[in-house]
């Protein structure tokens, strides 16, 4: 179990180093599909999967989802407009994200095929 979690974080951190930036960045690369997720989004992968395809049966597939839809969903979690049940989990995950970071993550997941 821990191996998987650590692997997720380690993968994203190593990839961030290789990309030349350890600090959180909101810049999105030209080819997002082949770019590692921004470091501030590494926690998304533990439930939504390395490529946006989750291993948990009740977590949505967000790989290839429309970026505008994803960004609006994340904003609604953050504002508390989406609430109750598992939405409470997402509220916790996004509460410290800036709008720029929300957009960057939405574009990254939207670009995964």
């Amino acid at each position, binding site marked *: 179990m*821990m191996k998987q979690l650590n692997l997720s974080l380690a993968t994203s951190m190593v990839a961030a180093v290789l990309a030349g930036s350890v600090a959180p960045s909101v810049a999105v690369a030209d080819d997002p599909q082949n770019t590692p997720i921004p470091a501030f989004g590494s926690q998304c992968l533990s439930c939504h999967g390395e490529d946006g395809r989750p291993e948990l049966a009740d977590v949505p597939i967000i790989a290839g989802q429309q970026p505008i839809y994803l960004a609006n969903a994340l904003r609604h979690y953050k504002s508390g407009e989406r609430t109750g*049940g598992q*939405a409470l989990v997402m509220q916790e995950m996004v509460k410290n994200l800036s709008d720029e970071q929300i957009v960057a993550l939405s574009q990254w997941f939207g670009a995964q095929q």
Partner: protein
Amino acid sequence: MTKIKRRTFLKGAAALSASGALLHRFAGGTSAQAQEAATLTARSPLGISDDLFNPPEISSINGQLRTNIYMGFNKVILPSGPTILRNFNNSLPGPTLRINAGDTLELAFENRLPENRPDQPTEVNIPNHFNTTNLHYHGFHVSPKGNSDNVYLNIEPGEKFNYVVQVPRDHPAGSYWYHPHRHGSVSAQVAQGAAGMAIIAGALDDVPEIKEAVERVLVIQAPIPGVDGILDSEDPIWPLDAERDFLVNGEYKPRIYIREGEVQRWRILHAGDAQFFPFKIDGLEIYEIGRDGNPLPEARLVEEVHLSPGNRVDVLVKGATPGAYLLRRPFFDQGKQSLPPVHLANIFVIPANDSRVPPGTPFGREIPKGPLPDNPILVDITDAEITHRRKIVLGVEDVKGYFHDTLFTINDEPFDPKRDDVVSRLGAVEEWTLINKTPFPHPIHIHVNPFQVMSVNGVADPDKPWMDTIAVPAAGTVVFRTRFLDFDGRYVMHCHILPHEDTGMMINVNIEP
């Protein structure tokens, strides 16, 4: 209590032949010296020599259960070979304690383990000091202070401690249990089998159909041996998918007999340390009648029974057509972790007049119809009663320097014995929302006060069951309500995947007078 059952031990053959295999001690120990208590040796409730034995039992007399309980090394043969475990009273599992509400438990406890090795971690959330221990009375609604259900005690090797636990007269009846709870060594000791059932009589026991049924106690455990003898490292326990040989009452794939047409009452305790244990018996009817000791509204036929570590379930099992049946855990996913099937026991339905069963043995035949009795003090908590609401967030972080660089957290903090995470007052009635940010379920247990489950993942539970341990689903939520009415003092809430508890997933609850 020291009775040794003789049976062939052959793991592979047992799997193939569906015959039970004994994991007997190869060195007997002294039995608990009951002083003011009645004792029963381990025995088959049907009187059949190769039937699953109920664990040894110690019962109260005249409102008092006074006995000796000790923690020590116990030589056993597991399916993986001979080893030495840390157990209570040389017994795997420990003796069942049976009392009535209003009784007093007086346990003269002794830690007979040898000194800890000197090279112990000093950080509180790294597993440490596996030979230091204490006792927790899981599910008991009793004082958390002094020499009652006080889990902040460190009972060091060679030390003795007298526990006096006053059980209230209105204590809910049901199936509870006891186990060590010293932060740092909980997982190691429970994972080795230091646990026993504790029964508070009443409620379901008085239902006529249940009263006339044979009662079994089934303690499910998966003892983890040390790599080269005595377990002195958390490593063999740590992986969720570590190979585990599940036992019932210390036996590997035991036989359990039921007579044709018979209904038996089973009290089942999941005393394992990490893996959930959903189970089914293909071909036989299982009716759930209670969870964590508390009665359900009525007996319910179920396909599968769900147990997370720490949970108890009371079921009625009905013997149908004579033959052999498997009690098994199916393949399932515990969050992101796939876990393999487990063949736990072999159920044999035998003729109703089998000559091995002595005359006069109880023979239940009916499933109770209609409502089951309530535990009177467990009254639904209404919206109007709520005095405070809290959010409890379960998480995990990678932090260098900790065990496997991992810290489990509650509200973003690992356990700190000095910090009061929840402060409330006697008379408060609270609603807590538990939010799990991790991709694995966490069975959360709170001491002293049971809670009423309102919803899971936002879906209301129409039964609103009273429990003391509830699995918060992976990336999911649970809402429960609880009353702080009777006992002030400080106690804990934590994950009952015990390696998570020892590595940080625990908080202090301080109820002020």
